């Protein structure tokens, strides 16, 4: 169902990985850092087009430069996740979080 969890990074995305970016969908509770890029691509198949998904993510505050911390995850398939985003908390599924690239920071 949630093919994005732990999915191997496709070759085209290695460049991004080399910059130390990971998909938010791969983060675990406790992981925190800064959102580096919101880039809807075809990583997962959605009922809305990629530009619409990108705008929705942006409207919920998933925007470059925002600080985040993954707080919780669901029992089944570790999905969905609850993310603290600056001052607010947002829940989303990992498949949607795959379009958010983040830079993880070491534990404080």
């Amino acid at each position, binding site marked *: 169902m949630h093919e994005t969890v732990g999915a191997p990074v496709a070759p085209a995305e290695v460049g991004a990985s080399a910059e130390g970016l990971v998909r938010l969908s791969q983060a675990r509770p406790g992981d925190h850092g800064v959102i580096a890029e919101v880039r809807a691509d075809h990583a997962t198949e959605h*009922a809305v087009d990629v530009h619409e998904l990108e705008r929705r993510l942006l409207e919920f505050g998933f925007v470059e430069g925002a600080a985040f911390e993954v707080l919780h995850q*669901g*029992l089944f398939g570790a999905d969905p996740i609850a993310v603290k985003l600056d001052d607010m*908390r*947002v*829940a989303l599924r990992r498949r949607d979080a795959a379009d958010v690239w983040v830079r993880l920071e070491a534990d404080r």
Partner: protein
Amino acid sequence: MSEAALPPTRIALVGNPNTGKTALFNALTGGRQKVANYAGVTVERKEGFLTTPGGRRLSVLDLPGTYSLRARSPDEVVTRDVVLGRLAGEAAPDVVVAVADATNLRLVLRLILELKAVGRPMVLALNMYDIAQRQGLRIDLEGLGRELGCPIVTTVATRKRGITELAEQVDALVESGALATDNAWHEPSAAEIRSAHRDAQRLLKAHVRPPERPDTLTGRIDSVLLHPVAGLVILLALLFLMFQAVFTWAGPPADAIEGGVAWLGGLVGEWLPDGLIRSLIVDGLFAGVGSVLVFLPQILVLFLFIILLEDLGYMARAAFLMDRIMGGAGLHGRAFIPLLSSFACAIPGVMAARVIDQKRDRMTTILVAPLMTCSARIPVYTLIIGAFIPDRTVGPGLNLQGLVMFGLYAAGIASALAVSFVIRKVFWRGAVEPFLMELPTYKLPSLESVLRNLWLRAEIFISRAGRIIMPLMVLVWVLSTFPGPPPGATDPAIDYSFAGIIGQALQPLFAPIGFNWQMVVALIPGFAAREVAVAALGTVYAVGDAEANVGALGARLAEHWSLATGLSFLAWYVFAPQCAATLGVVKRETNSWGWTAVMFVYMVALAYLASFVVYNVAVALGAG
């Protein structure tokens, strides 16, 4: 010219969800509110009135919460269209009041920038300002107001603070002759949303100092309530408590209502001469209305829980916890709220599906909502269980009747999940919509707003009982009274009536599922509203019995029905679309007779199938 002849100044409240917008609306307008629907859509239109300190009359619209004017759900479309003055029959507001949670400004600032582009005169209400102060959050009101180009008022809606000041600001704004400028709003692109975020970020940095004592309570509560295991256990416990409460708390008031209505009916009956009129009023109206009003306590208890959990901020957590389980069946986590409401009544449930901003998820939710056991089924279940299931303890704290009731609820839930799974496979070919949802900070609900909301639900239920059920009860009475029996007839009078004729004509269709013609008669008015079936059974089995009550009716049923028939009737009621009002709402919400027909057909088919299986299995086991 009298003052009343002046049209009131129109203001509209716009803001993110969970900003206390409705609390502000209540604080502004008090009891002077009208709840209706916007023309052509079933989005609730809440309008209230007040007079400002300057003597100006204001009409206030409480618009549905939204994160963006780029509307995606029917609720958000209304907000956008009202603000833009595009909605037919709705003039654009003279003043827009942007409502913000002072402790969570980031997203709302972006919305405010969108609202500014619309060009209407605007006041910003920073609500929950007391919490911001307690957290040591500092907001440079003057500077922020200057940059946004609108006056800012701080409010604490739940304590009615800042309300007069807000009204004064609206007054001043209208007084100053501020006029709407040209609308420059258009649907923002991703780049424009990013740029608006940067602007909002800059405003925050320049004018807001982050809290010295940020709220940690929500985080601490969440570490328990959103715990993968403990969270689910607590959710299930809450649901269990809720259903227990529906049956135990509602018992005494329900008995009181039942007794009161019967007493009134008896009183009125003494005043009336024996004959048709007395029979109509006592057996038709009083017995019918009484059998409906008796469920008001249960509906109120259920809504009390739903409103409390919603106001606390728990509903979003429930949606989070349930998302994966519901997602497996093709439902959105948010569908949890409409489906939970459907336990009270499918109508608010279907309407609450508007919170789901994706069309497919909303359609699926609407189609399965009527499978959840609504409170109108409770009278039917209570009657049949009371009549056929022994009141026996089968384990510590486990009562057989309660267990059967639980089983019926579980059957509704399981079938809703199964049906939505099929719908997704058949109609949507497996496509999945995004799931994004804010988890609001926990807040103590205000007693006043809970009571106001509860009162609203009671009003809706009572008016429905009055407008739909009363005329139907008269119809049932007419059908079961005329024509009268021929002289010298030996069978009960109803056998000769229209109801008897119709029931006997349709009965062969229902024979394979064990229904007798009296049941078929009860099903006919039961299509208008499920609970009517109880009153109709009462009429069919006890015409002329002024004291028709549920206990006596149950005893009559136990005499006339086999256990297999009783169980089959229960199975029918789990699935059958026995509610014209729900079908009407589904038509309006989906704007499609096609979807309404899909729902009707699949539910009838499931009901017939389930009853057929239950009846024949029960007969085979010797319960026929």
